[in-house]
């Protein structure tokens, strides 16, 4: 029986569109396949983005990925968003994850253990992570899958993000060596790229030089309709096709890269 492929979106810098990209990717994949989205960021942006709920502390009180990890079973904490798309939500309390893991003597395999009962229910598990070296970032990267475990590195074209790439690559490598030998970097996704910015070409060249063949051909350009997705939602949104325009080829490219591996 096949199990889910795991894709973790990350970068050690905030505001690089991890939540938006993981959310839209989950949505697009769910048009044809079964997807589980997991929000590993205590900000809960992916949770709000997909569920439309912003009062996440109340709505998902004691029903988040924190409880799934603590109790070693994700099943009671999976919420259905729409056909083929489920989510394990997050809220502010996920910020206590480190303390919880210490108190319960949980290791970096804790998320893998929690997901074990549901791995065969999905084709894809898409995970959003916070920007930084936290347990919330390491747990998804340490989660093994027979169908593959991948990291997508986000890059918004800024100098800060440029210097955040090697930090995140170091996190990927360290986790791969210690916990998840099959973890692979699927690629670097340029996102929120401002077409007017003079430095785009230089940034592209710099990243290509440092990380040959990792950059995705698809580039997600900055768009007002994409930004408005969090207001208008995915259903009955007249702007939807425009908002996800750049993500459609990206998801196809992502699937091809996964197949190649």
């Amino acid at each position, binding site marked *: 029986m096949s199990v889910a492929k795991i894709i973790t979106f990350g970068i050690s810098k905030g505001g690089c569109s991890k939540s938006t990209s993981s959310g839209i990717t989950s949505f697009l994949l769910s048009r044809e396949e079964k997807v589980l989205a997991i929000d590993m960021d205590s900000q809960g942006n992916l949770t709000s983005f997909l569920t439309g709920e912003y009062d996440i502390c109340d709505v998902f009180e004691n029903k988040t990925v924190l409880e799934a990890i603590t109790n070693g079973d994700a099943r009671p904490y999976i919420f259905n968003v729409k056909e083929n798309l489920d989510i394990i939500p997050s809220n502010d309390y996920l910020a206590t994850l480190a303390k919880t893991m210490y108190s*319960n003597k949980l*290791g970096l*395999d804790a998320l893998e253990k929690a997901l074990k009962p549901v791995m065969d229910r999905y084709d894809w598990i898409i995970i959003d992570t916070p920007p930084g070296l936290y347990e919330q970032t*390491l747990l998804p990267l340490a989660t093994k899958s027979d169908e593959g475990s991948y990291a997508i590195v986000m890059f918004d074209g800024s100098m800060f993000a440029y210097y955040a790439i090697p930090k995140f690559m*170091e996190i990927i490598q360290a986790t791969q060596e210690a916990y998840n030998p099959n973890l692979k970097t699927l690629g670097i996704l340029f996102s929120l790229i401002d077409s007017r910015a003079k430095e785009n070409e230089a940034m592209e060249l710099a990243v290509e030089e440092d990380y040959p063949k990792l950059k995705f051909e698809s580039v997600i350009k900055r768009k007002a309709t994409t930004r408005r997705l969090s207001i208008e939602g995915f259903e009955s949104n007249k702007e939807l096709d425009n908002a996800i325009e750049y993500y459609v080829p990206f998801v196809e490219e992502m699937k091809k890269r996964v197949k190649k591996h």
Partner: protein
Amino acid sequence: MSKNTNAIKDKIKKKDSAARQFVNQFAAEDEERKTDIKKNNDNNNINNDVNINNDIVNDSKTDIDLKNNNNEDNIINTTSILSSILDDEEPSKEFVGIYFDADVHKGLNKLVINKSRNKKKKKGIKSKIVNDVIRQVLEAEGILSKKGD
């Protein structure tokens, strides 16, 4: 390049990144945990392959209501059980082998870890928890007289 410079250069290159140190600390804790679990298993008084005979608990003559029904005799007060652990004198013991449901066993292990954390005396806590829970049930059914009676 001098020997000293080479040695310093090696130290610089071998220095672990923050990410590597962070991840490796978990790997080290995992190893420690595995060693502790092995030690606990070796020292445990109750065989982990424990089979509870349901006939005793489900005997029709002893209709035990384990839900909270305001009947003090039939309520198992876990707080009072756990608070008395390690404080009482220990009577003589007999080794038995019984089976637990997997989730009960897992929950018991978790409870033991939580409750033994700050205790000096960690050995035999699992046996005490199970023993005292069963004792309460038997006292409630009049099979054993209450301690101090």
